[in-house]
């Protein structure tokens, strides 16, 4: 209502002040904003175009730049600093019991099918566990077993060997060594004392036949 009066009473603010105003509006606006919309918000008589030129210049070479999107304006992070907008978080996690057991079985019994792993562990193996080990590249798919259903087998990888500081699967401590190092109790095992893992693997393979009819 007193708009007209105001127009005559008050002159447009000085350019430096106009620039500040445009700066604040662009900063706070939730979307890029057109010259027109900026002008609507500024006191009468402001020169948005000129203020934008000044402002753009002011931000030249800064961490933020004034950009034109279609016919609207917005502040954006300088493209060369895009890498700062990525946060890398490193986490070290312990493998779950299921994962480490599954891994151990694959290492000692490879090539081994999922059904066999379940047989040995006595519980089913979740898809996630296998996926995680595959993702870590500690295991990979071996040849399919020539049994009904042609199940895939799993074997350990070079990455696995590197991670655990092994030169080959043969370096895995055998059952006897496990026992000697106190990791297994000293109860005499029924049947043949397995001297090395290979023998054991064979045994497991033999067993398979009557496991799966």
């Amino acid at each position, binding site marked *: 209502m007193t708009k007209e009066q105001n127009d005559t009473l008050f002159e447009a603010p000085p350019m430096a002040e106009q620039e500040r105003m445009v700066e604040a509006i662009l900063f706070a606006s939730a*979307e890029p904003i057109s010259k027109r919309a900026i002008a609507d918000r500024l006191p009468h008589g402001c020169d948005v175009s000129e203020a934008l030129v000044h402002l753009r210049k002011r931000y030249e070479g800064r961490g933020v730049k004034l950009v034109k999107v279609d016919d609207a304006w917005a502040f954006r992070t300088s493209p060369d600093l895009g890498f700062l907008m990525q*946060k890398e*978080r490193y986490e070290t996690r312990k*493998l779950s019991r299921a994962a480490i057991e599954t891994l*151990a*079985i694959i*290492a000692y019994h490879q090539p081994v099918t999922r059904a066999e792993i379940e047989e040995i562990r006595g*519980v089913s193996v979740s898809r996630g566990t296998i996926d995680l080990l595959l993702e870590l590249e500690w295991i990979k798919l071996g040849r399919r077993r020539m049994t009904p*259903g042609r199940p895939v087998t799993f074997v350990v990888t070079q990455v696995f060997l590197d991670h655990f500081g092994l030169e080959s699967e043969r370096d895995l401590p055998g059952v006897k060594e496990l026992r000697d190092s106190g990791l297994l109790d000293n109860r005499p095992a029924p049947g043949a004392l397995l001297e090395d893992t290979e023998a054991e693997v064979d045994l497991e393979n033999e067993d398979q036949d009557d496991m*799966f009819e």
Partner: protein
Amino acid sequence: MTEPTQTEIEDFEQTTQERIASESLLVDVDGFEGPLDVLLTLARTQKVDLRKISVLELSEQYLKFVEEAKKLRIELAADYLVMAAWLAFLKSRLLLPPDPTEEGPSAEELAAHLAFQLERLEAMRRSAAKLMARDQMGRDFFARGIPEAVSQNRKITYNATILDLMQAYAYIKTKGNFEPLHMIERDRVFTMEQALGRMRTLIGHAIEWGDLNQFLPDGWRDDPKFRRSATASTFAASLELVKEGKLEIQQSELFAPIKLRTKRSQ
């Protein structure tokens, strides 16, 4: 609500205006935030530093306030009455010479604490007003309108040592005491792979519609736990084979036997 103004409270003391003023005060009883609030409002009439306030006078004003409320049959909350009783007690203690045998805090100490409480409440009110008068975000100043999301790249390293591995294996091996795995000790899980393998060899023989139960492996049909696992995996395996176009499956109604047969090639 509208808080009674200074003048309203002054009117409270004048006989002519007393009724009207007290009514306006009392009508607002609900608006008061408890007896301390009323006391503070009354205390303001004394126009002195709250520390130097006359608790005696304040007590009288408050008791009068409660009297008026009663006359007007306004229900007063218990805490207003508790305060009235306490102030009546304090007033008597303040008027009588101190009893040297009596233990506990003196009337002056109690009065001083009340003055402190009033001053503290007043101070908090002033501070609250100052706080709200500050520039506020979203009203006077603003945050970035188009924040740019920071993408999070999570890199997880899994840690396991050879010892973990050996211990895990040792654990598995000792669990079964090295006994060869018998059928009896086998876990009661007939896996999907097993079922699928079995079904693949069997479907060739299923020329006529046959009950799903017939396809369960020997040794898995009697014990309910075994049967449940075998049924589930055999059924799932059948669906898989239907998907592959090797098997047909049907069920006439809910809970009716599920029937299977080899898909006939046209």
